């Protein structure tokens, strides 16, 4: 498997038309779909605060935390 086929967060193969493997792709989907519930819950919540809160919780899944960390690192590089 070439590097471009590999998920940037693990050694799995990327899903077609996705930046990530199935596991991390699924985690990303869940992060995106849960945002509206968080936003409604707090009245207003920036994405940044949303990620901070998720990262700090024990309940948050490992793959979810890896995705958040990945985007944070990417932002720094960009």
């Amino acid at each position, binding site marked *: *498997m070439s590097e471009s086929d590999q998920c940037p967060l693990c*050694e*799995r193969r990327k899903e077609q038309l996705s930046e990530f493997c199935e*596991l991390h792709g*699924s*985690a990303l989907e*869940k*992060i995106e*779909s*849960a945002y509206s*519930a*968080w936003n*409604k*819950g*707090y*009245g207003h919540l920036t994405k940044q605060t949303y990620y901070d*809160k*998720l990262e700090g*919780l024990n*309940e*948050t*899944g*490992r*793959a*979810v935390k890896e995705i958040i960390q990945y985007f944070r690192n990417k932002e720094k590089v960009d």
Partner: protein
Amino acid sequence: MTTTLIVTEKPDAALHVAEALGGKRKPKKISVSGVPFFEVADDQERILVCSALGHLYAVAAKGKEARSQYPVWDFSWQPKNLVERGQKRQGKWIESIAKVSKEADQFVNACDYDLEGSLIGYTVLKYACGGADRKARRMKFSTLTPKELREAYSNLSPELDFTLAYAGMCRHEVDWLYGINLSRSLTQSALKASNRYSTLSTGRVQGPTLRFVVDREREIQCFVPNPYWVLHTVIEVDGKLVEAESRIERFDAKTDAEKIVNECADKTGVVEKLESRTYRLTAPTPFDLSALQSEAYRHFGFTPRVALGLAERLYLDQLISYPRTSSQKLPPSINYQDVMKGLSELEAYRPITTKLLTSGTLVPNEGKKDDPAHPAVYPTGTVPKRALDPREQKIFDLVVKRFLATFGETASKQSDKATIKVGENEFYLRGSRILEKGWIAFYEPYAKFDEITLPPLREGQQVKISEITVTEKYTQPAPRYNPSSLLRSMEEAEIGTKATRADIVETLYQRGYVKEERMQATPLAFRITEILTKYCPKVIDVTFTRELEGMMDQIEQGKETREHVDLATVDYLKPILEDLKVKESEIGQELTATIKEMKMAEITLSVPCPKCGDALVVVRSKKTGKRFIGCSGKWKTNCTFSLPVMQFGVLTLLDKRCPVCGFQMVQNRSKGRRPMVSCSNCFVNRMKAGKAKAQEVTVSQSLPAKKQELT
């Protein structure tokens, strides 16, 4: 005079059978090449009782092909000592049974009456006793008590239960075809890609079972919690503070919860309604094996395999009935009164048995599940002849109390609810109490109900909101499986048998697919499941495995043949294996990285070396062969930090930290023992403290002598 050879499953059972059939005559123990036989004889019949050691024969590949070869389709039943390592004893057993069988003209299979027992006896009679299976008879019993054994011997079935034995054979053959081929395919793929050997396995039941754990782990790893808010409310009633529930249990928006706090804080409410309901709590049903395993895990933390092992020991000691049962029924033929009278000899149960024996008719609260071969697990009424070890005692107590509880009267519980209105907002005060203990009194401490008493209240009474706050909470991911809940899921999915499920759960640990008590799937488990899903999804599909189980059940009922199911399995597996062979290198590459990563993770501690900060790893000394925790900085900084670890069993580094010193904890799992969790750092500290104490003692003891010397 006729000579009858009776084959039992285990040596203890052989002795009990001989003692029962001998009556007042003590059986004579004969040793044939170190293998015990028990002889009882009268004028007409000489009975020889021998035992197997579980399975003496196993399925193996025909011919002498390499162990790495796959696919393999030709198999036969062969003596276990010839095909499996460490089974020398079995060879001696087969030889001795074969020798003694020549003296016999009648044969009886008295192995446990179930699939495995029927198969064990059948293979011994067929292969070791020169085809005696054709003329052998079957002895069926559920307890090893003398009375039942004598009855079983005088009511022998005219022939063996062939359909049960064939169903058992087929199960072993199908599992072998799956296991040997798929496991060899995985192992060889990894070996060829990495040049390093790792035992990788999967199987007909193991694959779908592992998938349960992996699917759950995936769910947990991708879990995004959602916030919600709850109210914490305390109401003052006549000076007494009582916690209340809000009508709205949870709020999805924080402001909604805060609105209620603002409306109710420091306000007075009115008791609007008082309600009481009475519930009936029917007695529990008798134990089938999975319920026993589940309760043993819940109350004592015993894994299903440990619980089964302990229950089997109690069965061999004549204390309980055969534990591998699916039945929740207790037929009157077991004689409830006799069992209870027997238990009355034990002081701990006497108050209960006395109460039950004097209460009139005894009717157990039976469950729906039935097993044609055995009743539910029950105590035989025999008093232990030896001191039971603490773990055996716990299982014995649980079985006895459960049995007695099933005869108990229905218990009743009262639930009280007071509705408090504060403006438009509603709160509830809840209480509960047991009105009639009924069966609960017999099943203590295993049945527990918390009682909450509400203070006296009347409708219209004014009460004060003493405290009301908002608490933020988060939704929780699904819990990880534990050995007991995984076993329950296997049972619900109808995969595996009551005899094999516990072993399969244990294998997942041994292969490094899961770790920790709350079963956490490892990266290797993910990888194996992903590969199987990608290349042969049906292999880990529960539906397909269940279909196969159905076909094997039909053999038991005489509606299907073993040969047909074997052929169907080969036809099904052949194209899969051919495809896997072609993709060997691709699969190997996918496995290699994970195996390497796993192997490193398996031996690398998450805590750094306290001396130099480098990584700590579990290594083996080249000199002594002993394993220990060493610092990987040894070659860079010459750090000599080391800690001891236990030398036996499979060592797993846990995610847990020691509550005393914060060092990483390790777990040792070895066959037949409870997993042991320990902290190497604390062990060393305790040793040092012990030594220092010992030195102190030596010094203080030698001081007076020195004093004397000086004076």
